[in-house]
């Protein structure tokens, strides 16, 4: 085992891996075929169960509701101290860290990194146990997805012209009300464009559009993604979020129109300029939203001056 944690970091990973770990849901990789026990089962019974079914941790469940987890460590302790006939409810671990089935796989990865448990129970929206997830499940799920994706890319590669070395494609995850990190993606992309020596005006336009889109997602949605594609002559930014969506899309584009509450306004947002600002800096802008379905905004910015080609290689 390593102390370094899991080396999937937002800043360093390829966009393919990031796409996958956010697209894949926990329910896509978790084990549904559960071995469970009841709180009234004895530790001895659970030991037999573990041996028969070849598992190292068993959720203790009553009426589909998860009460605790009994791990093989608990069994070792019971064997040492001689209380194998006692009941599971007395010795199970009740401090539960649970995951929800609809969370992206990225969440599970960060949980394994953070908590150092061998497994996490997975619950549905109603908090009922629906599965378990282990690092093995993640490995298998991710490998299968990568395999599929690589096969698809190899096929694409055979058909298309060679990939442009100047091409950037990055996806960022934006969380609801996370004002500490919202804007971070814009700052990073800006830095990248400065390094590429693009025209400062173009850089500013891209950064402004991105920043407003990031803030929009954090303020108004339940969270979403920002995808940035940058070529030699243009940038395309797509913001996609989940519900709630916009009730009056035509009003939302008006300057000064805002549905933000006072708290958001006290944070310096919600002046009703966001979408108007994005439209102002973009060469093409489209916007789709429906209540309950979320919002997609796409902004394209054509660079006024073409990127300087580097001659140093």
């Amino acid at each position: 085992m390593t102390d370094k944690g899991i080396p999937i970091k937002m800043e360093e990973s390829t966009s393919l891996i990031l796409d996958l770990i956010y697209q894949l849901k926990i329910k896509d990789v978790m084990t549904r075929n559960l071995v469970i026990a009841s709180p009234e089962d004895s530790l001895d019974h659970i030991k037999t169960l573990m041996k028969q079914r070849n598992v190292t941790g068993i959720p203790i469940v009553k009426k589909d509701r998860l009460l605790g987890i009994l791990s093989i460590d608990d069994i070792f302790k019971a064997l040492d101290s001689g209380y194998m006939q006692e009941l599971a409810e007395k010795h199970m671990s009740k401090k539960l860290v649970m995951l929800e089935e609809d969370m992206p796989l990225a969440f599970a990865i960060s949980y394994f990194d953070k908590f150092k448990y061998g497994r996490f129970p997975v619950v549905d929206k109603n908090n009922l146990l629906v599965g378990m997830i282990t690092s093995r499940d993640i490995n298998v799920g991710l490998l299968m997805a990568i395999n599929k994706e690589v096969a698809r890319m190899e096929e694409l590669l055979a058909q298309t012209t060679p990939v442009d070395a100047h091409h950037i494609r990055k996806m960022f995850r934006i969380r609801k009300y996370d004002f500490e990190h919202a804007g971070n993606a814009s700052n990073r992309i800006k830095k990248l464009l400065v390094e590429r020596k693009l025209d400062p005006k173009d850089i500013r336009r891209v950064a402004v559009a991105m920043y407003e889109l990031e803030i929009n997602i954090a303020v108004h949605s339940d969270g979403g993604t920002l995808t940035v594609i940058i070529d030699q002559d243009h940038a395309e930014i797509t913001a996609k979020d989940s519900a709630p969506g916009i009730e009056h899309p035509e009003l939302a584009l008006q300057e000064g129109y805002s549905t933000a509450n006072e708290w958001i306004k006290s944070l310096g947002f919600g002046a009703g300029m966001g979408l108007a600002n994005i439209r102002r800096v973009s060469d093409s802008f489209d916007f789709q939203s429906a209540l309950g379905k979320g919002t997609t905004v796409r902004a394209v910015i054509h660079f006024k001056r073409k990127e300087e080609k580097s001659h140093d290689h």
Partner: protein
Amino acid sequence: MTISEMTKLTELTLVQKEFEDGVISGGYTSDLLSDVIANAEANNILITIQAHINTVAVSKLVGIRAIVIANHREVPIDMVEAAQKEKIALFSSTLSQFSLSVLIGKHIHKQ
């Protein structure tokens, strides 16, 4: 400087004319209404881009008798009506908050 003297500044457009005249004690520049409530003083002139009816309510609360809306923001009609009711002068300007602060500060200190 009084509010009626302010109406002579060419950089400002008087949008709501029915106001109670008086000497301006100083300026306050802010776009956060909670900040205006906490820090602005009575008889200050408020420089803001918050072209919103709530700005009038906050001004009334603090004792501000003149508001300047910066950056050429459109002033909504309900804001004008509210200001009229409270006898608060309402100006609009194409200048930024920075330029307006400098301009108004200069005139206040002339006295």
